[in-house]
C-alpha cells in the first residue's frame, strides 16, 4: 500500500513541477522576446506570412553577447509579423546545439539561424534540417559553407585589421612602438585580425614609423593577460599603444594600465560593460576608445535575412541582393569560398556612448 502511495505521489509531483515549468516559461528565450508558436507544428505548411516561425540557436545561455543578438533577431522577425523562437543550449557545445536543432526540426520551423559552436559538427543535423525544407543560415560563427545558405558576418577581417591599425596610428600620434595582446596563439579570429593588421601596415607607407614590437598571448585568461601586459610594460619602456583584439585581454590590460598610471594607451575589441570605467580621453583613463560590433544590429540583420530566405527574396547565391527591413540593401558576397553578408564597420565605443551601451547589458 505504502508503495502505491509513493508511486502516486511521484507521478503527481512530476506532473505538477513540469506543468509549473511550462506555465512559467512560455517564452524560452533571452530577453523575453521569443514567442512560442502554438501552431508551429504546421509552420512549414502554412502559406500566410504571419504564421511563419523563425528560430535562432545561440552559442549558450547566460551569454550577454548572445542575448543582445537574440533581442535584435526577435525585433526584426516580429516587425515582419513572424514568430521568433530563441533556443539557448544547455552548454556552449555542438552536442547541446544538435539537441536544440533536432527539436526545431520536429516543430517544423521555417528557418534556423545558428551561431555555431563548432565549424563541422553541425553538418549532419543542418543537412537534416535542409532536407526537411527548413532554410538554414549562420551568424557570428560559421559552419561548412555547404551546410547553410549564407553566413551573416559582423565585419570583414580586413576591415577589422584596418580599423585596429588606424586606431593605434591615431592614438600613437603617427609614430612609435605598439604591441598586440591577443588571446591564445591558435585563436582563429584573433590570428586573422592580426594578420590583417600586419598586411594593412605594409600596404601603406604612412604606417612606416609605426613599429610592432611584440604579439603577446594572454590566452583569454584575466591573470595571464595581466602578467603579459606587465611584461610588455617592463620590456618596452618606449611603448605607446597596446592593442588587444579580445574582450578578456583588453579588460585585463585596461586595469593594469589605469592602476599603475601608465602613459601607455590601449585600444582593441572590448565589451562596454567591462570597459566603462577605463574609457575616456583624459590621462586618468587608459583607453581612449575601442571597437566591437553592434550585436543588436547584427541580430536585426540576421532576422531580416532569415525572413528574406524564407520568403524567397533571395536564395543565398553569391551576387544576389535583398532588402533587410529598414537597414537597406545587402549583397551576398564570396569571401574565401564562404558566401556571406557583412553587417558593416566595427562599432566605435568612446566616452560619449560607452555608458549607454553598458546599460543595455552589452
Amino acid at each position: 500500500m505504502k508503495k502505491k502511495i509513493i508511486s502516486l505521489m511521484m507521478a503527481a509531483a512530476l506532473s505538477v513541477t513540469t506543468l509549473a515549468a511550462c506555465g512559467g516559461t512560455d517564452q524560452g528565450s533571452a530577453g523575453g522576446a521569443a514567442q512560442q508558436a502554438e501552431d508551429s507544428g504546421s509552420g512549414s505548411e502554412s502559406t500566410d506570412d504571419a504564421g511563419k516561425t523563425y528560430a535562432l540557436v545561440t552559442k549558450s545561455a547566460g551569454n550577454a553577447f548572445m542575448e543582445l543578438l537574440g533581442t535584435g533577431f526577435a525585433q526584426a522577425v516580429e516587425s515582419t509579423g513572424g514568430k521568433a523562437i530563441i533556443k539557448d543550449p544547455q552548454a556552449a557545445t555542438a552536442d547541446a546545439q544538435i539537441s536544440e536543432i533536432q527539436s526545431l526540426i520536429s516543430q517544423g520551423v521555417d528557418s534556423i539561424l545558428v551561431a555555431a559552436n563548432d565549424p563541422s559538427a553541425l553538418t549532419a543535423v543542418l543537412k537534416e534540417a535542409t532536407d526537411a525544407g527548413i532554410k538554414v543560415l549562420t551568424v557570428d560563427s560559421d559552419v561548412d559553407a555547404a551546410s547553410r545558405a549564407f553566413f551573416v558576418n559582423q565585419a570583414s577581417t580586413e576591415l577589422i585589421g584596418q580599423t585596429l591599425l588606424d586606431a593605434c596610428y591615431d592614438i600613437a600620434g603617427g609614430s612609435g612602438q605598439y604591441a598586440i595582446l591577443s588571446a591564445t596563439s591558435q585563436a582563429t579570429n584573433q590570428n586573422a585580425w592580426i594578420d590583417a593588421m600586419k598586411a594593412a601596415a605594409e600596404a601603406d607607407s604612412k604606417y612606416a614609423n609605426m613599429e610592432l614590437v611584440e604579439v603577446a598571448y594572454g590566452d583569454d585568461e584575466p591573470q595571464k593577460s595581466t602578467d603579459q601586459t606587465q611584461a610588455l610594460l617592463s620590456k618596452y619602456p618606449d611603448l605607446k599603444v597596446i592593442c588587444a583584439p579580445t574582450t578578456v585581454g583588453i579588460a585585463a590590460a585596461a586595469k593594469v594600465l589605469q592602476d599603475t598610471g601608465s602613459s601607455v594607451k590601449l585600444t582593441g575589441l572590448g565589451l562596454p560593460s567591462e570597459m566603462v570605467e577605463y574609457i575616456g580621453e583624459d590621462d586618468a583613463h587608459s583607453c581612449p576608445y575601442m571597437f566591437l560590433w553592434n550585436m543588436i544590429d547584427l541580430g536585426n540583420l540576421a532576422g531580416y535575412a532569415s525572413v528574406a530566405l524564407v520568403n524567397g527574396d533571395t536564395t543565398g547565391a553569391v551576387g544576389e541582393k535583398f532588402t533587410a527591413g529598414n537597414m537597406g540593401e545587402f549583397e551576398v558576397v564570396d569571401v574565401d569560398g564562404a558566401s556571406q553578408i557583412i553587417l558593416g564597420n566595427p562599432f566605435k565605443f568612446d566616452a560619449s556612448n560607452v555608458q549607454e551601451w553598458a546599460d543595455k547589458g552589452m
Partner: protein
Amino acid sequence: MAGKSGREISAVPEGGLKEKLLSWEGALILILVAVNILGVAISPVYNVTNVLREMPKYLAEAFMVFGMGYILVLGDIDISVGSIVCLSATMACFAGNAGLPFPVVVLVCVLTGLVCGMINGLIASKFTELPTMIITLGTQIIFRGIAEVSLGSGGSLSMKDTSGLSALGTKIGPFPISFFVLVIFAVIFITLLSKTTFGRRLYAIGSNQTAAKYAGINVQGSRFFAFSLLGFLSGVCAIFLLSTLFGANTTTGNGFEMEIIAMCVFGGIATTGGKGNLIGAFIAAFIIFCLRIALGQRNINTQIILVVIGLMLIVSVVIPAISSAVSAGRKKQGN
C-alpha cells in the same frame, strides 16, 4: 526488506505480479507513461516519428547506464566517463581519417574506451584505500587532456569519410540501429546483474566489502571488471555519438558522467552500494530523454529543464526516505 533509502533490494527474489507493479520500477513505468501523456498534451508535434528522430543522440548516452549501474552497486563511482567518450571519439576520428576501414575505426573507438576503463579499474583494484571518486577525477582530467592535446589548436576534428558512420546512423523502420543494440545490451546486462551468481556477488560486495571478501568473493577482480565494462560501454557510446556528430571536439561528452549517475540514482540505485537494479535505471533514462524532448519541443528554457530534472531526482530520493522513516516510527509506536 526496506534498505538504507527505503527501496526494494531487487536482487532478493521478488513476489507476485502485484508486488512487482507496486515496486519502484512500477512507479517509474507510471512516471514514464505520465511523461509521454504530458508530452502529447503540451506539444502538438510530440509523436513517435519525432521522438525517435530526436532520440539517437540520447540513446548513445544510455549505453553507459549499465556500466555505471554495476559500479554504483559495488559502492564505487566513476566520473571519468565523459572524458573517455571524448578520447574514444577523438581516436576514432584519427583512425578514420588515416584511411582505416570502418570496422577497424569501430574497434579503435571501443578499445580506447576499454583501455581507459581498465586503467581506472587497475588503479582502483590495486590501490584499494583510494576513493574511486578521486581516482576517476584524476583520470577524467588526464583522458580529456590527452584528447585535447591530440586535437591540437583547432580543438575539433571531423571524420572525412562519413559513409560508415552514416550507415551506423540509419534506421530500421522508425527505429535507429542504436535502439536495437541498446535493447540487446539491456537484456544481457540486466540478466547478468539480477539473475546470476555473478550479479549477486556484486550486491554482496556493495553491501559489505569485507564480508564479501571473507566469503571468498573476488572483490578486486569484480571491481576491475566493472570499471573495464564501463570503459567499453563509453567506447560504444562514443561510436554511436559519432554517428550523429560526425566528429569530435574538446567538449564532446562534457557532463555525461553526472547525467548518467543521475539516471542511475533516479532509477533507484543507491550510490552507497548494494541496492537497486538496472531495469529502474534503464526506465529512468527514458523518462529523462522523453521529458527533455517534450519540454524542448515546447521551447522551455534549457535551464528550466535542468531544474525540473534536478527536482525529480531530489523527490525520487527524498520521498522513499521520508516514507520509510514514517513507517519505522509507526512500528516503534506499535511496539
